[in-house]
């Protein structure tokens, strides 16, 4: 079977997504995404603007939120709390990874 070739796009902090794109990519309804923003679990890059834009990391967060909501049947406030804590864990793991990388290995 011949391999199909697919083009790929990096999901990065600098890449910007609209609220409508977040809805399409996550499957979460817009009202629930607005609640996540209201509870501080999801941070638009321009919170004061009329049309919010979000980073690539937000796309990954809301996709995880959608999976978690479906699996654990969480109501919006609990979901916001879980998403905030997962984001904190992600940041701490990145920091831990940096500290680990900076530790010299035992000389042989």
């Amino acid at each position: 079977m011949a391999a199909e070739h697919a083009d790929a796009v990096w999901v990065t902090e600098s890449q910007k997504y609209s609220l409508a794109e977040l809805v399409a990519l996550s499957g979460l309804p817009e009202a629930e995404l607005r609640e996540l923003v209201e509870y501080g679990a999801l941070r638009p890059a321009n919170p004061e603007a009329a049309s919010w834009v979000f980073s690539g990391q937000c796309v990954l967060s809301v996709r995880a939120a959608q999976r978690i909501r479906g699996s654990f049947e969480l109501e919006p406030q609990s979901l916001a709390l879980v998403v905030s804590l997962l984001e904190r864990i992600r940041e701490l793991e990145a920091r831990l990874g940096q500290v680990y990388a900076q530790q010299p290995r035992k000389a042989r």
Partner: protein
Amino acid sequence: MKYKDYYQILGVAHSATAEDIKKAYRKLAHMYHPDVSKDPAGEEKFKEVAEAYETLQSPDKRAAYDQLGAHRPGEDFRPPPDWEQQHGGAQFSFDDLDLADLFAGLATERQRAGHGAGQLRMPGQDFEATARISLEQAYHGTDVELQLSMPEADAQGRLHRVPRTLRVRIPKGATDGQRLHLRGQGGKGLNGGRDGDLWLRIALHPHPLFRVSGHDLYVDLPLAPWEAVLGTTVELPTLAGPVHLKVPANTQAGRQMRLAKRGLPRPDGSEGDLYALVQIVVPATTGEHERQLYEQLATGSTFNPRARFGKEMNSGS
């Protein structure tokens, strides 16, 4: 079609109530849900658990599942002859069908029956996969071949699990944990529904020399005591090939020497940095001549590496 014992997967009896099933599922979801679990095998286990729950939580699907009869897990079986007619009238091709697809097909048939045959527009399923690549592949960009198995409907709307080989170009810019988004490369949509997406997570194999943090790299730079004192020029490996690094005189252990733009390329075209971490190492054994030289140094030097001890202790009292 291979049989799966959904009751056994959830750890409940055949007589379990809907509440028992939900409770068992939630307990297992806490343990294995890939977004909250650190178990490396969690994702695969959770897929099984979710599939079992998806069927057993619905009274209709559970009744249909129970009518398949009791089989050993993994055993090849076919549903009873009148099973299809009893459960929505779907025409299944059982040979290349997974049990999960059988029940997904059942749900689709019911929705169709409610909306008029062939009218229901359904988006394709999103897929998540992991590509494990080396640091060198991340640095240069690479092609990977993914073997995926996706449920697809044929012209008659019958579901089949179809093997797909997808060649994906991983451009420069990768690092550990980074995601690639491939629009329309997930499961096929039905009746004009959009195709699902593929989300590819990059996992870097550990490298024997370089450690990775974001797009920065760290490498140990071992120096002999005299190299650290007198200064030297060393050949340092980088992903683009060796470079000459000037180590100044009196370089301390633990110092980080930054080589700008020698790390991993970022998606925006900039580059991370490479840090050489100075270590001062001594020989495991010392010959007689070397030992004499060290003794001369010990006698002649006024250097006190622990001068700070006395100072700090006195200032603290």
